């Protein structure tokens, strides 16, 4: 391969267009190397942000062929090989307001982040003269979300955020919420959790884009699981998400398997489920639901119940 082409989405504040830049291929380079080369040697008007070149500062998040990456951490060779091409499409991160070319606006994201109070509300069990000691286990609870470098890669392809920018928090904000909700030195976990609950905690569609795209191994989807669990522990169980999760939990204990017939009623209540009658009739007509076919307990259901009982005991010890 002699030449590499970057097809870059440009934006000058009013109009958008794609512009192609061609430059000689060099082995062992990064996506960012190409961007810097274009800016220094071809077109100084191209805008992008970058700083540390070491995947620490989080400022060079861009989309390559539809995938959010840190430009400094991403191998050019690997991307060319993945798509069997010499041409890559570079765009600004999705689900952001674009300022210029590949530069996105973080202001609104930071404002939303403040809603979950991503700071310590110090526990009254200690004070700054005595210090706030944590056990290894307590530290490990917050270690993963603390690795977030605010690069925005988890935001770009989030399946829920892409169609619901107002009613769902950016994945990293759920991680911030979780990090302070389970923080042993914090006095008011609910103040970090409740804004997350009110802003789509149960709307995550489990697309796993956030955990896949995070360049630092942060796992927002798992933090969403953790927040859901904490929310139920705090008593927020009267919502569709919590009831739905419990429907699975209880069915497994009862028979080992999901009962599709009772799932909507358990999740939504009888009245709301009545609204699903046209849907149910559609399925009934095709034999997709069998109203009188109730799952029988699986062979070994006693094992399942034993596991539940022992796990429950362990939970109480935890």
């Amino acid at each position: 391969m002699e030449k590499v082409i970057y097809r870059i989405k440009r934006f000058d504040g009013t109009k958008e267009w794609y512009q192609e830049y061609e430059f000689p291929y060099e082995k062992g380079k990064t996506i960012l190397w190409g961007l810097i080369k274009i800016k220094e040697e071809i077109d100084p008007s191209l805008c992008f942000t970058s700083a540390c070149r070491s995947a620490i500062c989080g400022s060079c998040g861009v989309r390559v062929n539809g995938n959010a990456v840190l430009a400094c951490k991403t191998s050019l060779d690997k991307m060319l090989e993945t798509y069997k091409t010499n041409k890559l499409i570079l765009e600004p991160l999705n689900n952001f307001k674009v300022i210029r070319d590949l530069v996105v606006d973080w202001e609104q994201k930071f404002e939303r982040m403040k809603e979950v109070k991503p700071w310590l509300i110090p526990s009254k069990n200690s004070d700054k003269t005595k210090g706030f000691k944590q056990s290894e286990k307590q530290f490990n609870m917050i270690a993963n979300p603390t690795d977030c470098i605010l690069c925005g890669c988890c935001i770009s392809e989030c399946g829920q955020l892409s169609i619901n920018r107002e009613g769902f928090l950016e994945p990293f904000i759920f991680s911030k919420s979780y990090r302070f909700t389970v923080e042993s030195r914090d006095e008011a976990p609910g103040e970090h959790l409740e804004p997350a609950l009110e802003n789509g905690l149960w709307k995550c569609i489990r697309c796993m884009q956030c955990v896949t795209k995070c360049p630092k191994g942060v796992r927002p989807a798992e933090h969403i699981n953790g927040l859901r669990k904490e929310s139920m522990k705090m008593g927020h169980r009267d919502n569709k998400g919590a009831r739905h999760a419990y429907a699975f939990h209880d069915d497994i204990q009862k028979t080992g398997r999901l009962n599709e017939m009772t799932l909507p009623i358990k999740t939504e209540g009888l009245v709301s489920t009545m609204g699903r009658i046209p849907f149910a009739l559609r399925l009934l007509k095709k034999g997709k639901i069998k109203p009188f076919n109730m799952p029988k307990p699986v062979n070994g259901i006693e094992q399942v119940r034993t596991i539940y009982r022992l796990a429950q005991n362990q939970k109480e010890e935890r």
Partner: protein
Amino acid sequence: MKYSFFPGCTLEAAAEELMISTKKVAKALGIELVELDGWTCCGASHLQDVDDFKAVSINARNLALAEKLNRPLLTVCNTCTLMLRTTKQRLDEDEELKEKVNKVLDEAGLKYTGSVEVTHLLWVLVKDYGLDKLKKKVKKPLKGLKVANFYGCHIVRPPEIMGFENYLNPRSMEMVAEALGAESVDFDRRLSCCGFHAVFPAEKEVLKITGIDCLSAKKAGAHCVVTPCPLCQMQLDMYQPDSQKSFTEDITIPVLHLPQLIGLALGFNFEELGINRHIVDANPVLINIA
């Protein structure tokens, strides 16, 4: 070729046609599937919201049952695959957790050792069975059929757990389609989510996702969508009429399970594969092919 078979809950109910077509296709290909006796729901990505340890333990039980048979555990549902593989990876990498889980399993007369692999039919076809062999079994090549391969999230993401192929640009579905004589279309939503897991708490948004997925496939010129996951199939098919209400453009497109597409190429008819059980009628687009 012998596998323990983990069907998952939907195959006993709304997606029964996937049970029917998987068994037909496996038999015709000479792949022996023995259903895992006593399997339970994998938790479907919901159980861990209530209790993570129960979710791990319940899947450790599923894996321990499979270990007794000493054959790879084959699934046909992306989410079952993810739940089982996640459990396996966590137990294999965390001795302390494994010990804790085994203490619980011991009371139930079981033990997890980590000796059984969890795989998906799609992967088995590509890696274990081989596409050349599959090609030789084709009786009615699907010539002229344009398919939109909708992978579904949990067969590629997260890659450190799934890891069968490059998660940014997987090709296994296209390779199978090609072996069957069909043509794959490229479409924006090939690796997108169907939204199934949040269809209750986020119904409005998920119905929008369904429509966007269907339209993307349709606009790329596909005759049908094909997916290796029953949850994606159910979301895109069963909810399509509801989703249509949010769109002015016609989003109608039939959605097939992967084994149904394979079954058509092996010479089975619509009824044998349960294609007539779908909400969106596949007859108009498939009639010339099958």
